[in-house]
Structure formats: C-alpha cells, structure tokens
C-alpha cells in the first residue's frame, strides 16, 4: 500500500460526507446505499465513523459529473477514467467525483429498483417471463399507460410480483419539483418539448418541466434513465432503434462496426447515415459500490497500491463477493489504527440492500400488467438473501418503536408487528426513515412520554422527534463516563427514566434533566440475575425484559425471573 506524501489524513475520526447530486442510472436510494456500504468497508477496520450531512460543507463532498465538471481533471466519456478523489484536507481535498458518462450499476447490468406495484420496492428480475415471452429489460407490454414495468421474480405469471421501472413518466430527481413526474408536452423558451431534453444546459443532463410551461412556472427535475436507454453519444436516454441502417447496411442489434475501440453502439433512429443519432448500448456497467470504496480510500489518505487484488489497485475489476484485501487494511490502519467495531466476517456482496415503501395511493397497485393466473410464489425473489433477517446471527440492536419490534443491522431495519402472526417486513433502509443516523445503531429506545426516539452509535447519540433530529451529541453530555464506548441496551423504567446498559454495568438516565442519576453505574448481574452479563441488546417488549446474546434471548418477567430462553430468529423475528 501507499499513502500520499506527508501521510495526509483526517485529524478527526468522525468523518462527514454529503451527496451533492445523483446519477440518472440508478434510483437514489440505491446510490445512497452503495455509498453507505462503501464507507462501511473502511469503518469496519478502523475507528473512523462516517456521518451523512444534508447541507453545509462535509469532509467528503460526493458528486457526479461529466467531462469538464469543475476541477482541473476532466473525465473522458464512457470507460477509461471512472472517478477520482482527493486526499484529506480543506476545500476540494477529500472530495470524490464520479464520471456520469459511465453506466453506474451494481456491476452486473442495469440495477433496476421498482416503485409502487406489489413487490415492496424489490429489484427487477431479469430475465423474467410474461405471457410466455422472456424479457431482459423493463417493458410496457400489457399496459395501456406506457409505464415500463418488470417482474421481480423470474416468472410473472406464476408469482404476480411486479413493480414499475424508473422513467420520467413516474418521477424526476433533483431540480426543484420534489420529484414530480414530467409533464409532456411542456414549453421551454417558447418551444414545445415532448420528451426530456438537454437543451438549456451545458452539463449533458436530461431534464423536463413538471408543469406544462417551464417559462412561467420554472418547475423542473432531472429524468431518470430507463434501463433500455443508450449511454452517452448524442442521444443519451433514448432507446436503440432496431433495425437501423449504418453505412447502407441494416443492423438488428448493437454493433461495434465503425469503431476502433470495440464498444457496442446503436442508432436511436432508423437511419444513422441520415440522422447521425447514436449512443452506447447498456452493458454490465461499473459497480458504484466498488468504485466508491476505492475512491473513499483516496479520500481517507490511501494512494494506489501495486497489489492487483487490493481495492486500492488503480484498475477496476468486478468482484461479486468483495472483501477488503490485507494490503488495504494495513494501509488504512497505518493511518488511523485498528477499529474497535465489528470485523467483517463475510464477504460484501455487491447488491442493493434497500427496499422502500412506495406510496400505493399515488399509483394504482392493482393496475397489474395483465393478471391471468392465480399467484403461486415459488420462484425466488431478487431480494438479496444476505439481507435476509433470518440469516442474521446477531443484530446491532432490537427495540420497540410505535409498538412495533424493530431489528437493526448494518444500515437496515426489519419490523415485526406486535399484533397478529405476520412475519417480519424489510429489509428497509435506516437512512430512508432516519437519514441522519449512521449504519450501525448500538441501541435505541422510544420515550413513551414524548414519543422521541433516541439512537446510540458508538459514543454519540441522536434524538428524533418525527422527522426532525437533534445530534449527534456525545454520550458524555449525559454524564456517562468516557470509558463507555457504546450503549448496548436501553430499558424504559416508568415515565422519564431509562436504564442504559454497557458492558457489565448499567446507568439510569433521567430524560427530563438529560443526566445520569446519582448512584450509578450498577452491576447488571446484581440487579438482573440469571441473564448474560455481556448481552448486546436489552429491550422491553410486551411487559417482559429481553436480554439478547448472539442468536439467543433471555426473557425476564416483572418479578425479574428468567421465564424463558429462546431463539431471536424464531420467537421474535417469526422466521419459518
């Protein structure tokens, strides 16, 4: 490994980052998630923490741009240079830029996260069959409203699971229209537009008005790329037109003819020779997670490694099951020391880990493509099995929020309703509901009186009231000693008092004064006999106190007797 001259590094461990804009290639939650996972790669082996900011100046400012994008190092179109980042420091130092002439994916072709429909935001499954035909991309077949959709399992007719694919007919991103969909036709500088356009901009991004007249309303947003859209060229966002004529010959698929670099391209009209409209065909793309993890290595102070298998090797290689090379670990630990947090034990798959709850009121979820058969969900879902709560051995924290049991793990949360026999729901992204929080939550509780939700991570805590947040603040402000490195459990005792557990001790916090009461800490095993004194989750649920260690729980009744020991997975998560 190599560091930059002078061993440039951050002089603080709580590094902040901010995502300034998004690529049209992937839905924003997938991009958020890819960056969060890329930071986690480094967090897992250092004492560094990464907090996302939504305004102001962060240590690491992340942006997408094309060609000349505002610094002295322009990008070079598709392929070639993918991204760059600056070593730690003030101003542009520490920032990471990603070339938006690349096709950003999770490394294995278009990463299409669905919206609405009935698949709870799952990823499209390509190929899928519908009405006996196989589809390798989103389609408008079976619909009259021209909205592209896909199946989220391999067989729509069997499973009936579907969602809508990103398109300008569904939403926009960025801009000033809060994600409203495009309105066509719209007027811009007194000219009428029937599709997204790059007119009026010099950065090549496609946009549309979200009312019928931009000139009067000034409302606009950027258009998400459809999975079938060409990349770059002079027709970005348009679909290939097959067949097309090139140098007098007809082509029914993408071709590398006419190019010296072997890249596949197509015409976006029926005749290239006449119209000269073209773009590159969608390919596997580059894993935003892997490239971001590399760039963040630079932003933390690592230069290029000469070891081919290392993350900091300058060339891109896709790795399905990524794990940090020992060379990278030694490099980053040379700068920041080793981490106190959990060590990675399993490779990181480059798959999205978020699903969202699309608003069913906005799009009719019963408006299925073409229902024919009775649903029979036998084919596998594309939800990543590694994000399956039932395969999680140890959760970061378990707590009850709004009467619902929440299971937190590495940026994700699963929910189990307290009533009925329904199983768990998720994985949901923590950042979607509580954007200010880091990926790992050590402990959380909801104040039953004020409904404020307290989250603890390392030596910091946040307080959410609805959507507004206070923090992060140091737990030392509450009166916890500096020796406490994390709060592992929280137990509401009556109104206004909460027990905070760490190691073999617990403290009582007065929520009104926001201070630890006198007479604490106390030993956990003295007050709560019969439970492990190294429990990593402590919470109250349906009148019982639960102490969790790895996959097991110890349940204590109101007389402080352990009345049950069981599996978290089966009894609390309701796994089959």
């Amino acid at each position: 490994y190599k560091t930059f001259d002078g061993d440039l590094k951050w002089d603080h461990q709580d590094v902040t980052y901010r995502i300034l804009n998004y690529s049209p290639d992937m839905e924003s939650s997938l991009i958020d998630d890819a960056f969060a996972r890329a930071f986690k790669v480094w967090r897992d082996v250092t004492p560094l923490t990464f907090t996302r900011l939504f305004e102001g100046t962060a240590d690491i400012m992340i942006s997408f741009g094309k060609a000349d994008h505002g610094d002295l190092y322009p990008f070079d179109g598709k392929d070639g240079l993918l991204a760059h980042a600056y070593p730690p420091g003030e101003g542009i130092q520490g920032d990471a830029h990603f070339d938006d002439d690349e096709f950003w994916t999770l490394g294995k072709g278009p990463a299409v996260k669905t919206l609405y429909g009935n698949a709870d935001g799952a990823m499209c499954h390509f190929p899928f069959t519908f009405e006996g035909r196989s589809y390798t991309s989103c389609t408008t077949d079976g619909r009259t409203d021209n909205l592209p959709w896909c199946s989220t399992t391999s067989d729509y007719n069997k499973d009936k699971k579907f969602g809508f694919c990103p398109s300008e007919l569904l939403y926009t991103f960025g801009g000033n229209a809060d994600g409203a969909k495009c309105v066509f036709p719209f007027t811009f500088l007194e000219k009428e537009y029937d599709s997204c356009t790059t007119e009026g901009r010099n950065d090549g991004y496609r946009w549309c008005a979200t009312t019928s007249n931009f000139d009067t309303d000034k409302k606009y947003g950027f258009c998400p790329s459809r999975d079938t859209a060409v990349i770059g060229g002079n027709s970005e966002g348009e679909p290939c037109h097959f067949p097309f004529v090139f140098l007098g010959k007809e082509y029914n698929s993408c071709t590398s003819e006419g190019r010296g670099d072997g890249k596949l391209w197509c015409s976006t009209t029926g005749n290239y020779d006449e119209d000269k409209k073209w773009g590159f065909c969608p390919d596997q793309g580059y894993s935003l997670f892997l490239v971001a993890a590399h760039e963040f290595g630079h932003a933390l102070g690592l230069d290029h490694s000469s070891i081919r298998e290392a993350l900091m090797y300058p060339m891109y290689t896709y790795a399905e099951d990524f794990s940090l090379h020992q060379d990278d670990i030694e490099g980053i630990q040379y700068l920041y020391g080793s981490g106190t947090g959990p060590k990675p034990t399993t490779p990181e798959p480059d798959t999205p880990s978020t699903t969202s709850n699309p608003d069913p009121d906005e799009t009719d979820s019963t408006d299925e493509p073409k229902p024919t058969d009775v649903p029979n969900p036998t084919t596998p879902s594309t939800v990543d099995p590694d994000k399956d709560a039932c395969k999680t051995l140890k959760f970061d924290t378990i707590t009850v929020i709004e009467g619902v049991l929440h299971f937190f793990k590495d940026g994700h949360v699963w929910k189990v309703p307290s009533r009925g026999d329904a199983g768990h729901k998720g994985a949901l992204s923590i950042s979607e509901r509580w954007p200010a929080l880091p990926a790992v939550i050590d402990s959380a509780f909801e104040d039953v009186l004020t409904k404020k939700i307290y989250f603890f991570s390392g030596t910091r805590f946040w307080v959410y009231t609805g959507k507004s947040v206070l923090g992060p603040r140091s737990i030392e402000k509450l009166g916890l000693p500096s020796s406490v490195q994390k709060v592992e459990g929280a137990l509401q005792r009556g109104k206004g008092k909460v027990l905070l557990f760490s190691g073999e001790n617990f403290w009582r916090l007065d929520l009104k004064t926001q201070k630890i009461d006198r007479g604490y800490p106390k030993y956990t095993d003295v007050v709560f006999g019969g439970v492990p004194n190294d429990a990593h989750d402590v919470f109250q649920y349906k009148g019982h106190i639960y102490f969790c260690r790895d996959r097991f729980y110890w349940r204590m009744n109101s007389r402080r007797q352990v009345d049950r020991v069981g599996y978290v997975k089966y009894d609390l998560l309701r796994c089959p």
Partner: protein
Amino acid sequence: WSIPLKSVFVTFPGDIVKNMTDVELAESYLKKFGYINTVQRSGFQSMTSTDKALKRMQRQLGLEETGQLDKQTLDAMKQPRCGVPDVAN
C-alpha cells in the same frame, strides 16, 4: 466463402473518445498518470525516457517489466481505472 468485412471507422458526433494510435495512447497514459513529465522537487521538469516510464508503469501495475509497449501493457492502458495519478506530481 464469406468475404471478410472491411472495417471502416467513422467519427461519431459527440464522442469524447478519439481514435488514437497505440503510441499516442501510451504517451497520453504515461503523462496522465504521472509516469513522464514529472515535476522534480527542485522545481524544474525532467523528461524521463519512455522506456523508463514504461518500466515504472509496469512495475507499479504488477506487469512484466519489459520497458516495451507490448500487448500486455497496451491492454492494461485500455482498462477502466481510477483517475488519480499513480505517480504523485
């Protein structure tokens, strides 16, 4: 017998990537990533020979150090990569 296709290269409008010869590509690569034309600490520029720059690049990227613009080296130069220079300027 099929007649081999005679490839014709065209200039695509809006294409940032220009058709370059192998030597042009190598020169551009070695400059862009800091292997030649590096500024010395004393302040003046020194142009290392292309052979030396190629060797340096081959060493950095774990390739066989031939000092020649061989296929392996050219292939490496065509790979997608990070834009941060390998040799600090």
